């Protein structure tokens, strides 16, 4: 199979390059590109690799703090966690592949994010994932849930990294475009971080891992007439993951990283060999020469185009110190992985690739990498949310009738069915398993813990992007705080529709603005992330979903909080929120959606100053050992949060509705932000309330733990057993009808 000799306008269009961009290529090269070069420009200037539509907005995000070792720009973000250690973490999307082939798409998403993290020298210690599926009624949903969850588990379980948390929600807005965002957290020595900038002239460029096949090659190329009829057969666009090889790759890379032979290292992710080599050369201000005949290949007859653009999994590219190739080769051979010196660094600032005696690529590095296009796309401010009509709220609803319906609704239902398919305990450091607020993983061999969480409320983002952006960050910060952790930093995965539509750019810009405000106010910088545009079907975009992955540090695991009630007879105290319990914020609440059938109103506002004050106060209580039971209030509001604490601890509670409230529904189900529930022994209540007042934080005792029911006021009660059944049953029942594919 030969590549076409000349590039046509049709090929340019098929490669997703605009006429302007093609003109730019002609100027850069001073000649038309070869077909292979066209492919390279196409992937390097793709939205995915170049961030051409998002770059200028991402600059708004705060990225530094005294504890940040490396912010965005490398494979993952790095923060200092003391004792000479660093946490390295990132989140990435695998939305489209997971929709096409849920098992492999999700599995390779996990594989890819793991590589981003161990590339930097970290041993991965935890995975998380954000899953947003379409409506449960949509005919594809079950199949997608089954495949995605099995794929995430299949990969993570096999490599032996615990999957400890995430989100899993359902909304018709994702019917044709699900979201699968995977996050990995790793641990490294702070003085042994590996970066991707190549250095030194004439240094060997080394390929390790699996062989290259025709997987995932830019689908655009199929149009060329020169390809034979079986082209499609030969170029499956779906990659298959090999977690076993990934496990070997992790061990081999970490073993090599303990020596001193690596100059630079970069995983081969999207756009494979092309983007990894451009990245390393561009960062180091160097050039690279590649001899494609030395690339380990899985199939005979691969073209230069295919080798350079293949997205075969489980591969890495490294620049080594000259003469030290033997050290590296011995390690990779021991782990039974491919190892090949496929090129060397140069001082030309150009990428030159040879194949079968011919130069097939000769292009300057910088215009494709650092100096790739950047767009200031037009944007339209989103229409403000329609105000919530007073009549929208069913005033007559019985809260104890609404509660089980809410707890058993798809979004609030227990996700046990999901996380029991993930090995969440391997590595024997998971001290808070899935099911609570943040997951907590012990820093191996120490008494410290890393708390981690993924959060975003797309319905808020859709109604008001700025507020939604703020809220996503604040909720992550709150979940970490509720465990007693000091929030350190954020990774994000920004899932939106097409940036070519002003309304979508408006959502994007709004969410970023909100995120930036919250990150600044909460000293919670963004250190890594990913943008996923074009999440739409037939011109209809998904509800905007900027997933926030947050990590925090618990200095002393003996001072950690968990959400489940631990003892009967303790006081339940509400901390944060409005000073006077005048009602509650029902706009965009789950109560409104699930019980009144309405998605309406403005989302609850986030008061960032109050958020910080309240969170710092709660954290200080946990750090002082005065509070060991804590849960933040989010989806579903106060009553749902109390029920979650009761179910987690298998201890009931009696709540007192403040007498000043004529109508308790909004108070019980409003999703007002910046609030926590804690429990303390009765004789500590006065001290706690006084402390709160001194800290400028509102606090109100709202009930007592105990019994096997949830009691509301004098005449209403509901048994925990009934609530548990409602909470736990929905997902397994829904999935029971699924026809799991054969493994």
């Amino acid at each position, binding site marked *: 199979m030969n590549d076409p000799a000349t590039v046509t306008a049709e090929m340019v269009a098929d490669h997703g390059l605009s006429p302007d961009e093609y003109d730019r290529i002609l100027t850069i090269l001073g000649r038309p590109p070869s077909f292979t070069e066209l492919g390279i420009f196409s992937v390097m200037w793709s939205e995915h690799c170049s961030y051409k539509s998002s770059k200028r907005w991402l600059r708004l995000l705060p990225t530094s703090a005294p504890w940040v070792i490396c912010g965005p720009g490398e494979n993952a973000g790095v923060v200092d966690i003391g004792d000479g250690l660093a946490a390295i973490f990132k989140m990435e999307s695998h939305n489209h592949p997971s929709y096409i*082939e849920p098992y492999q798409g999700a599995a390779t998403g996990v594989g890819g994010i793991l590589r981003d993290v161990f590339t930097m020298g970290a041993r991965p210690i935890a995975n998380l994932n954000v899953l947003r599926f379409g409506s449960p009624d949509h005919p594809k949903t079950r199949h997608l849930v089954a495949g995605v969850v099995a794929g995430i588990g299949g990969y993570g379980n096999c490599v032996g990294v615990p999957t400890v948390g995430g989100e899993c929600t359902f909304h018709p807005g994702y019917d044709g475009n699900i979201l699968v965002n995977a996050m990995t957290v790793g641990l490294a020595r702070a003085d042994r971080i590996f970066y991707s900038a190549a250095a030194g002239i004439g240094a060997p460029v080394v390929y390790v891992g699996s062989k290259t096949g025709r997987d995932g090659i830019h689908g655009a190329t199929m149009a060329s007439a020169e390809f034979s009829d079986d082209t499609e057969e030969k170029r499956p666009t779906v990659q298959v993951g*090999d977690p076993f090889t990934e496990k070997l790759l992790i061990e081999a890379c970490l073993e090599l990283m303990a020596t001193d032979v690596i100059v630079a290292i970069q995983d081969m992710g999207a756009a494979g060999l092309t983007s990894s080599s451009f990245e390393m050369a561009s960062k180091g201000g160097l050039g690279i020469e590649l001899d494609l005949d030395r690339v380990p290949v*899985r199939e005979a007859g691969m073209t230069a185009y295919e080798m350079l653009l293949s997205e075969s999994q489980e591969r890495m590219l490294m620049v080594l110190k000259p003469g030290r190739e033997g050290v590296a080769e011995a390690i990779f051979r021991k782990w039974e992985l491919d190892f090949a010196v496929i090129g060397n660094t140069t001082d030309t600032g150009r990428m030159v690739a040879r194949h079968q005696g011919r130069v097939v690529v000769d292009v300057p590095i910088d215009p494709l990498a650092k100096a790739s296009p950047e767009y200031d796309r037009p944007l339209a401010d989103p229409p403000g949310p329609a105000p919530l009509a007073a009549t929208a709220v069913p005033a007559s609803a019985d809260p104890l009738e609404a509660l089980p319906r809410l707890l058993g609704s798809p979004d609030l239902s227990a996700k046990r069915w999901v996380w029991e398919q993930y090995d969440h305990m391997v590595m024997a450091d998971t001290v808070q398993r899935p099911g609570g607020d943040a997951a907590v993983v012990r820093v191996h061999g120490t008494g410290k813990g890393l708390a981690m969480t993924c959060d975003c409320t797309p319905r808020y983002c859709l109604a008001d992007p700025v507020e939604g952006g703020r809220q996503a960050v604040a909720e992550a910060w709150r979940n970490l705080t509720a465990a007693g952790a000091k929030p350190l930093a954020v990774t994000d995965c920004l899932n939106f529709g097409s940036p070519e539509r002003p309304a979508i750019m408006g959502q994007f810009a709004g969410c970023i603005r909100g995120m930036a405000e919250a990150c600044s106010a909460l000293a919670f910088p963004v250190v890594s992330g990913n943008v996923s545009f074009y999440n739409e079907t037939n011109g209809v975009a998904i509800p905007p979903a900027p997933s926030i992955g947050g990590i925090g540090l618990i200095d002393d695991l003996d001072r950690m909080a968990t959400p489940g009630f631990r003892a009967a007879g303790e006081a339940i105290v509400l901390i944060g929120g409005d000073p006077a319990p005048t009602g509650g914020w029902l706009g965009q609440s789950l109560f409104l959606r699930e019980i009144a059938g309405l998605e309406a109103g403005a989302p609850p506002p986030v008061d960032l100053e109050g958020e910080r004050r309240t969170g710092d106060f709660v954290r200080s209580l946990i750090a002082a050992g005065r509070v060991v039971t804590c849960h933040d209030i989010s989806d579903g509001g106060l009553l749902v949060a109390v029920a979650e604490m009761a179910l987690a601890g298998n201890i009931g509670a009696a709540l007192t509705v403040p007498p000043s409230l004529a109508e308790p529904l909004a108070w019980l189900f409003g999703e007002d932000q910046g609030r926590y529930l804690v429990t303390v022994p009765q004789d500590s209540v006065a001290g706690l309330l006084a402390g709160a007042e001194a800290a400028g934080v509102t606090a109100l005792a709202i009930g007592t733990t105990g019994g096997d029911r949830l009691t509301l006021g004098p005449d209403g009660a509901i048994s925990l057993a009934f609530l548990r059944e409602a909470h736990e049953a929905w997902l397994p029942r829904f999935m029971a009808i699924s026809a799991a594919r*054969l493994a």
Partner: protein
Amino acid sequence: MKAKVHVTLKPGVLDPQGKAVAHALDALGFSGVHGVRQGKFIEIDLGDQDPGGAQARVDAMCRQLLANTVIEDYAIDIVD
């Protein structure tokens, strides 16, 4: 009546299992193995139905459940 279904990976799709098995055969001293591909073999007992309809029915089963047609091919053999 029975259907015998072979489900195999499409050409070009990575087969980690086959790769590992080839490796293991080599380690066991079976030299000269050029490659291994692992697929599924599914036997379905269809009771007594007319063979014509059976082919179409099993084809539907393959597309809906037995094979993942994004990465797998299948072949059906109706026997009795």
